């Protein structure tokens, strides 16, 4: 069983800082990586597949971002799916919007595992990690 790894994609730097802090408090074993927009994140994923680096098991994806937003990231990610060595990438949409439109749209992507409305507290993060890694984190 691989180590839990989480990728945070969000342009809200406060959110990134706080989430990282919470995750650090929860466990030392969780590797956390972050990007401020979808474009950087997808470039990272591409690099990982090219260099056969391990992919993060969990991606917490914001919707509203500059350059490439959450939806844009999902479209690009979809194209990469056949090339992925590890299938187990769980994408959670994390957004401050509880707009039902966004929720509906998220369901259209089979790659999306869950939909989380901010603020994301510790228990929510724990729930996600448990879902993905059972108790092994």
């Amino acid at each position, binding site marked *: 069983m691989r180590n839990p790894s989480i990728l945070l994609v969000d342009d*809200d*730097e*406060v*959110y990134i*800082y*706080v*989430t990282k*802090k*919470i995750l650090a408090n929860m466990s030392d074993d969780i590797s956390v990586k972050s990007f401020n927009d979808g*474009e950087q994140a997808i470039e990272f994923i591409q690099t990982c597949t090219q260099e056969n680096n391990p992919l993060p098991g969990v991606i917490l994806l914001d*919707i*509203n971002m*500059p*350059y*490439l*937003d959450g*939806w*844009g990231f999902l*479209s690009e990610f979809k194209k990469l799916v056949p090339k992925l060595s590890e299938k187990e990438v769980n994408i959670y949409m994390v*957004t*401050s*919007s*509880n*707009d039902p439109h*966004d929720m509906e749209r998220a369901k259209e992507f089979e790659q999306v595992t869950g939909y989380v409305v*901010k*603020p*994301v*507290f510790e228990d929510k993060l724990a729930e996600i990690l448990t879902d993905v890694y059972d108790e092994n984190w």
Partner: protein
Amino acid sequence: MWRNILKTAIALYIPLLIFSLYWGYEQKQSLIQGMGIIQQRNILNKSYHLIDQSINLISITSFWSDINFPEAFSKTNPLDATFINNYIRIMQGYPIYDQLRFIDLHGEEVLRFERIARDSMAPKQPQNKIDRDYFKRGLDLERGQVYVSPIELNKENGVIEVPHRPVLRGVTQIFDGNDVQVGLAVVNFNMDNIFSFMKSRITEDNFFLLDTDGRIITSNLDFNTLAHQNKMTPKDSSIQKRLELKNLIFKKDTFFMENGSLWTYQNVRTGYERDVGMNRYAGMAEIVSDNDWAIVQEIPPTYIRSRLDTIRKNLILFNVLTLGVIGLIGFGYAHTQKEKRNFVAQLKRKNKELLASKAKLHESNKLVERSNEQLRVRNKQLEDFNYVVAHNLKAPVSSMNIIVDLLSKSPDQKTFEELFPKLETISSNIQTLTDDVQTYVSILNQRELELENVNLLLKLKDVEKDFVERLLDEEQQNFTIEYHFDEWHALKCNRFYMRSILHNLLSNALKFRRPDVKSHIIFETAWEDGKKVLYVKDNGLGIDLERHGDNLFKLYKRFHRDVSGKGMGLFTVKSQLEAMDASITVDSEVGVGTTFKIKFNNS
């Protein structure tokens, strides 16, 4: 219109009028022709009668030349009474015998019988006729010849007998048993009977018997026979004058109209029976005569008029009926036309009303459409606002929640020091956000936007000043701004919004130019569906519409990492345009350029 109908009616009527007049003329001619022919027959009969009678007289006269008279009778040696009495008895039965005289070669009447009553003749005192023309002509006769005198009024002892008695004298030589001429037999024939037959009328015709010189021998207009031989009364003169006709100059058998009368002329030719080869008068005595009679008959204007009356009446009746029918047709036509015009006028009016209602409906529809469109835009704006609230406004709040939560869980100094600056960041973010949202909301809530005529070129020149430093910068030298405002150059809009829009678009073109090419931006006006359209084209970096198309006009969206900006420009442009009832669309290709199309719906 009435004038047209009148014209048509006249056009219809004139040919009919001409036809009817022609027809009337033909009828008249044919009537006159018919009358003329009848008249001609009538006077031919009269002429035959006259000739017949004359021949009869000649035969009677001729009879005496075949009688063997006793020798040498004279005044002193009268004829034997028994010789003559037998003849006298026969003569008495012929009323035509007016006088019978035997005149010796010296002009002395040897015997003279005169008719004293209808069936009785009596001897009278002989007279001397040596000076009379007929005596002289008689002496010149040869045996078998008969001299026929002109018709004259009878004279006794050189005086015209009263009452006038028109006579014709037959003169022939008489001989004794040895064929020695003993004198002349002169028979006076009373022409009254013959004349009275000839004077008979078949219509109202006037009859004239003329002599060689065209003088009237007798006429049925007057009792006065042979007026010219006596003293002519004014009436006789006027009757004679009537016959001075142009058409009579040639004395040919004919009929003609002159002075309103129908005239028929017939020469009485005594030799006609020979001409026609009749043997009725064969073996007749040779006639010596100066007579050259002619018969003229006149149908007076009154009678002709009375006969033409029927034709005239028919003509009038025909014309009246024709006019009536044409009038009725004209009236009917006019009536129909009027109704038609009324109908057309009514149709036109209704059509107009319909068109007016249609226009009204169309206008209302347009208004409804317009309102619908505005509502649609408004709805979209609300959605956008909702999006902004959901995504942009909630984000810092949720971050703050987390921080507050963390602080409450571990309220130690270290954590506080760590997290406090983050709260400051959030606070400043919220400040920026609320400012931007306020701008946005102010655009959304602008209900009565002040619209005025804005000259696009002037406005653009004004906007250019905002970038004067960047445009003058050496690096920016190869950036050109072009204007194509041929189609239109001014429009009704809010000048502040318009300035902001142009500013943002020009700013974007400057920001996102390709450094490796000579850059430009083109502002071009056009018309589409009757609406004003402004194209803003650049040859800059371009945007991947497949990736970013949805977000292009959204708040805080940025598409070029290495170009500064907070993602507010196009969002504001779109909001301001929608507030002015305009729409913006984009067409772009990465590495080629971007074209914005602004459509002003209220233009």
